[in-house]
């Protein structure tokens, strides 16, 4: 750093300092040259829009005519809008359907794969295969799988004498079906992260515990679970934040229906912004979502700071 440079009063020293300064300036210039493209993208397409959305949330504007300043009206409206609360609850419902199921399944799979078993490597790849699928395509496939008449699920249920519901047009079932897409897609992914965490637990711990005559169940609760906590916490937090942003499958499968049963926050913001063209109101909603995610992330950071020291030297 600049202040680290020691000043030398002799002429020779002066030259040396000049040379070092020149080298230093060049190095800084080089650094910024390397950084320039990403900085342009960062400032123009991330930072500016964040300030932009905050500003827009104070206006009423359909993006065509002239915007009109309305102060905090949008925020007042959204606080009293039952549909916003419905969207928040729907989003939370989605997360609740999603995260526990996905995490428990992933943990069970990870525990199974953590044993010495044949084909473990292949199985790992197979389980991650859903992760890369396009949510839009999955929405199409799931709409078919859960088609009341022509879908696999009801056909299979029919074979055992059960009359399956009209999944996607039934408000009670639409959200679970949409959540099942995400569970299917991310269980393998979560499993991999947990498996890595499991493999980092030293074997000697288990061996010592076994000598002490503990049962496998006791070992799981006394060794595995506590030592897996960082990994578990990581997947819980990141998957929760990810789930908060559910959009694609809702857009393709239900458009927020039936009767608003799958109208989640992201879809609601999209609908206000680009179907009803209330861009100011949509921006205010986006600010609320932003604040929610900020809260979750802050919680995550505080938790992790205890354990991980970020190194910026």
């Amino acid at each position, binding site marked *: 750093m600049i202040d680290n440079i020691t000043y030398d009063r002799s002429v020779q020293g002066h030259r040396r300092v000049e040379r070092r300064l020149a080298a230093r300036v060049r*190095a800084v210039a*080089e650094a*910024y040259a*390397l*950084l320039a*493209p*990403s*900085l342009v*993208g960062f400032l123009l*397409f*991330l930072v*500016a*829009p*964040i300030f*932009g959305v905050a500003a827009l949330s104070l206006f009423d504007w359909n*993006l065509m005519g002239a915007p009109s300043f309305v102060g905090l009206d949008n925020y007042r409206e959204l606080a009293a809008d039952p549909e916003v609360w419905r969207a928040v609850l729907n989003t939370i419902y989605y997360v609740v359907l999603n995260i526990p199921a996905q995490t428990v399944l992933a943990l*069970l799979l990870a525990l199974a794969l953590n*044993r010495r*078993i044949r084909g473990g490597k292949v*199985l790992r*790849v197979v389980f*991650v295969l*859903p992760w*890369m*699928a*396009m949510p*839009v*395509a999955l*929405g*199409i*496939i*799931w*709409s*078919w799988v859960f088609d009341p008449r022509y879908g*696999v699920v009801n056909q*299979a249920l029919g074979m055992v004498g059960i009359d399956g519901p009209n999944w996607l047009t039934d408000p009670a079932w639409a959200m679970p079906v949409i959540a099942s897409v995400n569970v299917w897609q991310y269980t393998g*992914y979560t499993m*991999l*992260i*947990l498996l*890595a965490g499991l493999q980092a637990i030293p074997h000697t711990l288990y061996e010592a515990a076994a000598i002490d005559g503990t049962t496998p169940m006791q070992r799981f609760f006394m060794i595995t679970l506590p030592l897996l906590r*960082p990994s578990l916490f*990581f*997947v819980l937090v990141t998957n929760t*934040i990810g789930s*908060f*942003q559910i*959009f*694609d499958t809702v857009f*393709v499968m239900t458009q927020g229906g039936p009767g608003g049963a799958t109208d989640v926050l*992201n879809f609601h913001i*999209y609908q206000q912004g*680009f179907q009803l063209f209330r861009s100011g109101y949509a*921006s205010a909603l*986006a*600010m609320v979502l*932003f604040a929610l*995610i900020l809260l979750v*992330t802050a919680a995550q950071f505080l938790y992790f700071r205890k354990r991980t020291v970020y190194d*910026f030297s």
Partner: protein
Amino acid sequence: MKRIALYLALFAGAVVSVAPYLMTLNSAFKEPAQVLTTPAWEPAFPVTLENFAQVWSQYDMAGFLLHSLVYAGAVTAGQVVFSTMAAYAFGRMSFPGRDVLFWGYLATMMVPQIVTLVPLFLIMREFGLIDTYLGLILPTAFGTPYGIFLVRQYFRTIPRDLESAARIDGAGTLTVLVRVLLPLSRPILATLATITFITTWNTLLWPLIVTNGDATRVVTLGISALKGQHSSQYHLILAAAALALLPLIVIFLLFQRHIVRSIALTGLK
């Protein structure tokens, strides 16, 4: 006995993981009437390419795939090049404002896409880039904070000695980056490229807003529109979905080693 139960459970999980893909592919090869009348698990017989031919000829499926390829390809190229450059600056160089900037980058990692949507749309409108490839590509082509973070972390695991040796030999920054660091960073760059390509290929929201014409319609928009038009003509929309998923499966199988490793690493920061 326990062992058998374990294998059975894992096998069931594996079946569930691949079943939607297989059923989709299977049904896409069935005759239209059979898609509705036969169960999804019944093998396609006779096998027909008619559904693919129909989505290919009546809808611009080739165009959708090409537009997505350009979009995802360009974003991936930009991401790899610019993230590497920025990662080198952040990870290996010291300059005033570095830490503040890096924290700024990290902080924006959690900003949901929908938050910046309207302002981003307005920026593109001012640039006259609505309905263009550039409008599609630019927001993510300069390297995302995620990509920069990923590469920077990797750079920091490479011993500095290698770099110093090259410096003593008179190599400049760019030479060091290209000759010394890049060859050692292939795995992480392959991972970044694969993940970026897959993510971009799958993106719906930004293309939905910034492109509305046919000239740049990407495959996510193409097949979701097809679903809107033919919600119950499953033979068509399943064939289209299969075509949209196919490139991903190929890429995944090519790079599966990197993907599996990189996912495993994300939890162990």
